[in-house]
């Protein structure tokens, strides 16, 4: 068992007055971050750098040391009175503090799953009118700019690239310029007042699909959203195949790095065109991807993730410039890769936690990203645990005889009616195969009408005629060795001139895949000591999770047997979380601290997984779900 923090121990409590809110955090977290953690707004413009002096709090009890920043901002009396900068002040013991009322209301927006997110981008554009230099005023270009920014609360540094740009821009702009500051860094200086235009990019880098979002950092509004296939897909469907590609080929790592950059730069090009935005107007990027994808994106060797004991090179948030990384936007733009919870629970899930607020809310919730690698997070503000369950590609239609991806011609939903079966096909064309959501549906429907036993076995043809109408019963067919299948579409109904069938072996593949995820869920539920009834909500995330029918997921036992209305598809939670981390610096700080707070359990190290896995390979009995067999199913 590996866990990042000893469960429930060594946390300190921070009480905020007059809000009367209390939170428990690992010692060493700043008071500012702890406030963000519970969604309590404390003012700040410098992005928690200790320079703007706006995030003051008064410590009433506990922990009284001062920092250099405190001594710079506050007078002796104020210090004696307990005033401190909350962004510098680390809670090492229980603390009670008073938060002054906010000046004005912070801008907030509803994002993710009903989350009230305070918009405060880390990008600041400050229009300045500088006094031109004279024989008397001999300050350098950069000092001039820096001095003008000081009263605004910024203390900036500049890179060589920005310095090279500086003399031209200042003079061409006739000393009327806009400074672009990301965090502490002066990333660009533009002629005139361009403060109305500030953009950022959020990426969900998936093993299969990459989603890019261009956002207006002033308003928080999405300007353009596009998705495309990850160009690495030709080198294998899952992360292990990608890793083994880098191991087997000398230039494998640089190959895969170039491929993902090509994919991302292609998306950027399209997004910018669609939004009418220039590359140099993009100042910040946030990415959320699994550990392997982010390693390959950064050109960092992922080999150790693929071999026991599965160790990423870095799990903290990585920051680099667009130029270093190879993204075709403003060279000094900052790129932030969200952190991981473990080698197989990546930044996509950290983003998912931001989008759902699962680790910050009361009430136990379950977040499952259903895919080749199933990621599972269970918990509440009190305690949150995560694990990864290797499901395999069955949900994506692979290893299924007539399986296919969710594209035109794929059966995506199935209803078994008294007089036959109803297929919903993508693109409204004759079906050519079965995609993951259709696979789940047909198995669930067969369970409901009794044509499939809890063990996963089809009933025999003669038994079928006793259970359902002949039109349905005749769809159970068998070959000479006794291998049974269920016909979804006869050859004359299909778009490929071949019948589309669900074979007994397909069902077995599905059982392995769902057993892996259900087994993983079982392990974390036992770890937290919760039962299905305790679950307030179950969130299904990911490109597959969002399309599956919650009722079908419940009938096949992919998720615990909660009332169906508690199961929610939350869409691309990773993308939504990346967007939140881009638009709200506070939320990004929350993301930064998540790896210390969420415990990661590697299933390979858990002896109890095997028992869980074997016990959930079967499908649940209908009565354990409070359901009965129905010979004819109306609508799920």
């Amino acid at each position: 068992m590996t866990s990042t923090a000893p469960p429930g121990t060594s946390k300190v409590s921070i009480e905020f007055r007059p809000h009367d809110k209390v939170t428990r955090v690992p010692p060493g977290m700043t008071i500012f971050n702890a406030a963000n953690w519970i969604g309590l707004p404390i003012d700040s413009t410098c992005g928690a750098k200790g320079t703007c002096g706006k995030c003051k709090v008064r410590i009433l009890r506990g922990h009284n040391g001062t920092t250099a920043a405190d001594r710079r901002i506050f007078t002796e009396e104020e210090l004696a009175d307990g005033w401190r900068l909350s962004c510098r002040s680390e809670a090492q013991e229980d603390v009670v503090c008073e938060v002054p009322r906010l000046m004005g209301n912070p801008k907030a927006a509803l994002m993710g799953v009903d989350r009230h997110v305070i918009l405060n981008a880390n990008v600041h554009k400050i229009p300045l009118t500088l006094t031109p230099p004279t024989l008397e005023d001999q300050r350098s270009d950069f000092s001039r700019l820096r001095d003008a920014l000081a009263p605004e609360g910024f203390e900036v540094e500049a890179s060589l690239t920005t310095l090279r740009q500086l003399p031209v821009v200042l003079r061409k702009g006739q000393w009327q310029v806009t400074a672009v500051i990301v965090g502490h860094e002066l990333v660009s200086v533009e002629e005139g007042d361009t403060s109305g235009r500030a953009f950022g990019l959020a990426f969900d880098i998936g093993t299969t699909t990459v989603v890019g979002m261009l956002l207006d950092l002033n308003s928080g509004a999405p300007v353009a959203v596009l998705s495309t296939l990850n160009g690495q897909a030709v080198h294998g469907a899952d992360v292990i195949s990608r890793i083994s590609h880098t191991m087997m080929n000398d230039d494998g790592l640089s190959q895969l790095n170039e491929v993902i950059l090509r994919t991302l730069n292609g998306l950027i090009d399209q997004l910018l065109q669609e939004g009418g935005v220039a590359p140099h107007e993009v100042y910040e990027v946030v990415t959320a991807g699994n550990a392997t994808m982010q390693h390959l994106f950064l050109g960092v060797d992922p080999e150790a993730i693929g071999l026991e004991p599965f160790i990423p090179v870095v799990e903290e948030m990585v920051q680099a410039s667009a130029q270093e990384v190879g993204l075709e936007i403003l060279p000094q733009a900052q790129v932030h890769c969200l952190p991981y919870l473990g080698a197989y629970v990546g930044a996509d899930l950290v983003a998912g936690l931001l989008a759902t607020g699962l680790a910050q809310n009361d009430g136990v919730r379950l977040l499952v990203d259903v895919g080749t690698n199933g990621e599972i997070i269970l918990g509440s503000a009190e305690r949150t645990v995560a694990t990864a369950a290797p499901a395999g590609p069955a949900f994506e239609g692979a290893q299924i005889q007539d399986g296919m991806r969710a594209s035109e011609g794929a059966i995506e939903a199935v209803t078994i009616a008294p007089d036959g079966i109803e297929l919903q096909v993508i693109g409204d064309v004759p079906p050519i195969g079965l995609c993951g959501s259709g696979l789940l549906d047909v198995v669930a429907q067969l369970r409901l009408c009794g044509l499939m036993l809890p063990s996963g076995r089809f009933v025999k043809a003669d038994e079928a005629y006793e259970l359902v109408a002949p039109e349905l019963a005749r769809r159970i067919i068998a070959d000479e060795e006794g291998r049974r299948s269920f016909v979804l579409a006869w050859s004359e109904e299909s778009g490929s001139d071949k019948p589309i069938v669900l074979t007994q072996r397909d069902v077995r593949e599905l059982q392995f895949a769902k057993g892996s995820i259900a087994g993983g869920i079982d392990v974390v539920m036992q770890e937290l000591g919760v039962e299905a009834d305790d679950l307030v909500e179950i969130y299904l995330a990911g490109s597959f999770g969002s399309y599956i029918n919650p009722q079908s997921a419940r009938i096949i036992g992919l998720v615990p047997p909660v009332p169906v209305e508690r199961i929610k598809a939350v869409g691309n939670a990773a993308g939504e979380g990346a967007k939140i981390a881009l638009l709200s610096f506070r939320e990004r700080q929350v993301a930064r601290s998540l790896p210390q707070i969420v415990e990661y359990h590697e299933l390979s190290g858990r002896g109890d997984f095997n028992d869980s896995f074997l016990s959930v390979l079967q499908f649940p009995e209908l009565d354990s779900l409070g359901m009965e067999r129905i010979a004819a199913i109306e609508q799920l």
Partner: protein
Amino acid sequence: MSREEEIKKGLYEHTLVGEAAEVIELTQEGIDLGMDPLDVLFGALIPSLQEVGRLFEIGEYFVPEMLVAARAMQGAMGLLRPLLVDKGAEPIGKVVMLTVKGDVHDIGKNLCNIMLEGEGFDIVDLGVNVKPEEVVEAVQEHQPQLVGFSAFLTTTMPFFKSNLTALTDAGLRDSIRVMVGGAPVTQEYADSVGADGFAPDASSAVRLAKELMTEMGYDISMGGDDSEGASALATAVQAVEEMMVKGHEDE
């Protein structure tokens, strides 16, 4: 039908559905009646487990059904083993099985073990995450005819090659036959690393093991080289199977 025949039929049926308690009870009754332990084993239990393997292969049975059947069979074996040893019945061959270094997937390997054991092989299971040097040590110590490597990850399959090289370097490669398997493994991959055989599932693994034994010149017709006894057993198996078919038709 004599009580003996009833017992054999019962053993076959209860093993097939994994009813351990019934299987143990019937085995004890057979022993008390003085039935030949070889007849109980080869005339009922092994045919039943073979049928389990066939049903698994066509997808009719799944891992849980296979495990309960194996557990039932193992219950019976606990009672029969001392008697079989007394009769001088020998295993048909010895297999060292393992999951390669870096890999902890063992469900597939364990199913193979069950079927091989059920067919009369003696299994030495080295477990998971087994290093090449441990493979060499185990082959030196146990002197098996066959060695089986299992791998479930694309990143751990290359350890087949490492193990084979280690065995060659230790001068042991020629004394054994090596079979490989696991979800991502293919016949081509097995050939490319120089393994002697590949099987996609547990029943095929048994067939493969027997083929390799025959290639090596062993007579695997059951229980050593008592060919008369073997043919008698084959007849017994056939009889039980026929009986089963009849039994089903009667229902």
